[in-house]
């Protein structure tokens, strides 16, 4: 095995440029004669546009063009890539999402005009000279309010703001399960709205070559090929062959950059119209009102249990807020990626989940790290804790009683998913050990002596990722396949260039894919180069999201490498005068079985490009390059157990996360350092929601109250303890390399884990639930309202 192959903690090769400021992001690309675009956005949450006067802006110094809805009326809107159907089988309501607001604005930040000028400052000056007459309308930002009769209506043809009334599971079987229940545990909870806040704001730069009609769009996307279809073909009518999409270094996506946006389309269109490159770079405050946001559910959940604490049935009813427009994958997130996850790691035989997908006067929501699965895990794992409290059962014990046993895999849940492998007892045992669970009572006593409330929380979870088997995805509404591509080009001197359809925006693909190829070819990983993010270079691929890149993109690479080895075996057979069937490939050498005759991989590559006389050019093509498309047989199912310990100062409500242990089964570990980093980052992102992140709109007027980091509470290093990360692997059977995915597990498990710990810390006050975020004010208020209750008892 190569020293730097699968399983080696190879340092990330991309970090040299990232850490030395040598990354090349969209904003770093400067084209000759480039223009700058600025978008004028709605200050209203909901209003009619009565009149727009752009004359003064157009006459403003250095302004080249000002565009409004009328100018782009001939273009299509922002397309949705995943349509869903309601429980009655009818498709969701999908009103047009115009590139510039037409007639009406539906959220603060809705773009109304595009100003293109010689400089950003000139464009901003002009934007201030656009006169827009609005007629303000009542706005609704909260999903529960939007569902009420008499709520402001966003669309004339979408009654009740209801985009889709969706369900999964067997309602009758679930009702029957509840009818025979010994106890029903109930919980109402809110999953807060989040702002993604990638370190690099979105940006787009488009170029047009009039002589050929070719467009190039440099943009911050996680899925360049998909963006080319959605922006080029569907939005603008530019054929794929005439649009090259380049996603260079991208500073974080977290789902917000798997969405395609009007700005990307508009700069492309404007570059063509004006014959000059057009660049747009979002400012942070602009990102707060224009990047697709995450979560935003209101849920009622009930769990039916028998006398022994076995789960009989689960019933979940959720209102999901998708904002003012249908985003690229928006409707799919709170439905297909949510309801089917409610089985968790348990044998609950009957599950029924209803989701009302609602429009409101807010920024559209879409995938945000975890995308649906953190929401499901939060509902289920909070509810299990409530049930344990109700029945006076130990929280570990109630989980164990309901685990899908390791020997029951593969396992079919009542809500669509077919789990391949897992050993939840093993991850639980390891987490209990690493968290010193059994010694908690003593730590709680010691904390109490210091005046602190100490709590411990546990979550056992599973998630579905590795999106996705195309056939299943299409049945669920995906408007395309979900395979991945790879092209492996062996160069004449024997080094290797790999072109992947996946996209690296922080995951470490350039390192880990090279390790994979190095391992499979028996060559050092530093002789392998990974190329991604350019539709002109890589074969059509679906991009990176849903923890899919190793499971689907890695499998595609492995498949292409397999084809390389097959051809190498043919070439070697001729060079070594042996039958192809007798050629073994091992540790970088093609050899004749049972002999010492062999050729190195580099020698075979050389022969492929400089064919010796023995090379049968008549029957075997020269060259050594193969392409593969891999469509997974199923999702992958990472899972595990997380434990958090917290201390609360009851005097102020201040919370300290004292310890955090993550034990995850991510399948085969390709690079343990990268896996640890991904889980670490994921845990922190989830803790961000549990501790402080919360996107708040003013109920009265729909204004965003948390429009900057002054009010939107991002997690900081000193909010966090050292995080213990361990893996406990059962390789996946759903792909050839056994990986499951590690990009989102941390975010999926950690909000519920932290909140379970918080509620445990407050248990002595009789508190059974606290909504996120566990801010000091919220915890202090919870204690204040509970103290009198406790005193009264």
């Amino acid at each position, binding site marked *: 095995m190569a020293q730097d192959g699968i399983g080696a903690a190879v340092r990330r090769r991309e970090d040299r440029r990232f850490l030395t400021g040598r990354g090349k992001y969209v904003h770093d690309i400067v084209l000759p004669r480039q223009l700058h675009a600025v978008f004028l956005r709605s200050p209203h949450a909901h209003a009619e546009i009565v009149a727009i006067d752009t004359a003064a802006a157009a006459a403003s110094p250095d302004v080249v063009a000002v565009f409004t809805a009328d100018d782009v009326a001939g273009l299509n809107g922002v397309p949705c890539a995943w349509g869903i159907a309601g429980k009655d089988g009818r498709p969701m309501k999908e009103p047009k999402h115009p590139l510039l607001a037409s007639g009406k604005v539906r959220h603060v930040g809705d773009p109304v005009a595009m100003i293109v000028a010689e400089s950003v400052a000139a464009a901003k000056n002009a934007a201030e000279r656009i006169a827009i007459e609005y007629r303000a309308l009542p706005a609704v930002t909260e999903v529960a309010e939007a569902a009420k009769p008499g709520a402001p209506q966003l669309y004339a043809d979408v009654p009740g703001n209801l985009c889709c009334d969706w369900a999964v599971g067997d309602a009758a079987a679930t009702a029957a399960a509840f009818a025979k229940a010994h106890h029903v545990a109930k919980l109402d909870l809110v999953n807060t709205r989040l702002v993604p806040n990638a370190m690099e704001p979105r940006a787009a730069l488009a170029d047009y070559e009039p002589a050929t009609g070719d467009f190039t769009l440099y943009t911050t996307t996680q899925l360049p090929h998909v963006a080319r279809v959605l922006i080029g073909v569907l939005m603008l009518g530019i054929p794929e062959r005439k649009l090259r999409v380049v996603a260079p270094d991208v500073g974080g996506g977290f789902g917000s950059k798997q969405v395609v946006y009007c700005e990307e389309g508009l700069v492309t269109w404007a570059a063509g119209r004006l014959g000059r490159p057009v660049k747009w770079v979002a400012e942070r405050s602009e990102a707060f009102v224009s990047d697709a946001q995450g979560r935003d559910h209101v849920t009622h959940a009930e769990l039916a249990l028998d006398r022994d604490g076995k789960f009989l049935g689960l019933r979940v009813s959720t209102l999901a807020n998708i904002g003012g427009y249908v985003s690229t994958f928006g409707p799919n997130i709170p439905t297909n990626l949510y309801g089917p996850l409610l089985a968790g790691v348990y044998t609950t035989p009957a599950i029924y989940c209803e989701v009302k997908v609602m429009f409101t006067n807010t920024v559209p929501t879409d995938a945000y790290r975890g995308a649906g699965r953190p929401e499901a895990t939060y509902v289920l794992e909070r509810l299990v804790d409530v049930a344990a409290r109700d029945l006076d059962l130990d929280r570990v014990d109630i989980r164990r009683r309901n685990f899908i046993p390791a020997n029951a895999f593969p396992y079919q849940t009542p809500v669509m998913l077919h789990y391949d492998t897992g050993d939840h007892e093993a991850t639980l045992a390891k987490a209990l050990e690493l968290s010193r669970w059994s010694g908690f009572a003593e730590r709680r006593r010691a904390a109490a002596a210091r005046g602190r409330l100490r709590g411990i929380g546990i979550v056992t979870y599973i998630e579905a990722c590795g999106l996705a088997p195309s056939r299943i995805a299409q049945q669920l509404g995906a408007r395309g396949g979900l395979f991945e591509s790879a092209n492996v080009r062996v160069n004449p001197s024997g080094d290797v260039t790999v072109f992947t359809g996946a996209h690296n925006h922080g995951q470490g693909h350039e390192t880990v894919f090279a390790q994979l190829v190095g391992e499979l070819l028996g060559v050092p990983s530093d002789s392998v180069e990974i190329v991604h993010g350019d539709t002109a270079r890589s074969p059509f691929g679906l991009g990176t999201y849903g923890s899919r890149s190793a499971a689907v993109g890695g499998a595609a690479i492995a498949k292409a490498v397999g084809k390389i080895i097959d051809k190498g075996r043919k070439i070697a057979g001729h060079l070594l005068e042996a039958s192809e069937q007798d050629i073994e490939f091992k540790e970088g050498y093609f050899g004749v079985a049972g002999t010492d005759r062999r050729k190195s991989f580099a020698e075979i590559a050389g022969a492929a490009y400089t064919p010796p006389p023995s090379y049968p050019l008549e029957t075997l093509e020269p060259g050594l390059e193969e392409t593969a498309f891999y469509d997974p047989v199923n999702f992958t199912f990472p899972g595990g157990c997380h434990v958090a310990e917290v201390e609360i100062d009851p005097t102020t409500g201040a919370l300290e996360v004292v310890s955090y242990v993550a034990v995850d089964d991510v399948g085969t570990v390709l690079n343990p350092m990268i896996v640890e980093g991904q889980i670490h980052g994921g845990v922190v992102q989830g803790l961000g929601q549990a501790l402080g992140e919360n996107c708040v709109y003013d109920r009265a007027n729909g204004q965003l109250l*948390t429009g900057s980091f*002054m009010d939107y509470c991002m997690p900081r290093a000193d909010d966090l303890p050292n995080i213990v990360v361990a893996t406990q692997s059962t390789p996946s059977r759903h792909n050839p390399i056994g990986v499951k995915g590690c990009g989102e597990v941390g975010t999926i498990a950690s909000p519920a884990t932290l909140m379970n710990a918080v509620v445990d810390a407050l248990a002595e006050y009789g508190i059974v639930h606290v909504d996120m975020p566990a*801010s000091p004010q919220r915890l202090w208020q919870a204690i204040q309202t509970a103290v009198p209750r406790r005193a009264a008892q």
Partner: protein
Amino acid sequence: MYPFAYHRPATVAEAVARLRDSEEARPLAGGQTLIPTLKQRLASPDALVDLKGIDGLDAIAAEGDGLRIGALTRHACVAASPLVQDLIPALARLAAGIGDPQVRNRGTLGGSIANNDPASDYPAALVGLGAVIGTSERRIAAEDFFTGLFETDLEPGEIVTEVWFPRPRRAGYAKFPNPASRYALAGVFVADAAAGIRVAVTGAGPCVFRLAEAERLLSTSFVPAALEPLRVPATGLNADIHADANYRAHLVAVMAQRAVTAALL
């Protein structure tokens, strides 16, 4: 950012003259508030008068029974000054906790107090210690200087040049941070000085204020427990998504106790 003229005078007199040239001119010190405000196009001064070219405004010196600190002294320099640490350690610790390293290495004492952000730390120290502010024109007692939300007693064209802090017998500061911005939701500076006990509160109201009830309780006994009976009225306190007025009032009482604890360390 809108265009503006930029001046970098070498003397206080010249700076005052430049500021008086135009009603819209603004003095620039560390720029930690003004520059972001300009970048967001929320202010449009026709001229910036950069005070950083004036020599001698960033000195720290013992003077009388106290400390004289120049208006352009950066927070990090106050925090790291052996003189401040020796004479008024609570002031050094307060400065060490302002904002983040970037703010502390750019932001200045004079800039901070002239801006009078309701959640900034320095006003609590100035009022708590009974400091005297020296300007290009006069000397002003701290209590008279901070007049309201982002309001001070400064006249147009008047520049803060220094602050004189009397040395207390003991003093302490405690703040509870806004979880998002890390500004003070409630910050309390407590000083036991020749002039008596002073308790000053920042972050909780529209402007720094003294807490007479806490001062009375601590005058009997300068220990945290003396503040047990303290009830801070919520009336008139700030309220936002991070802390309503009741929570802020409660935090003021808790931080007052913690400030006393810090003073006794």
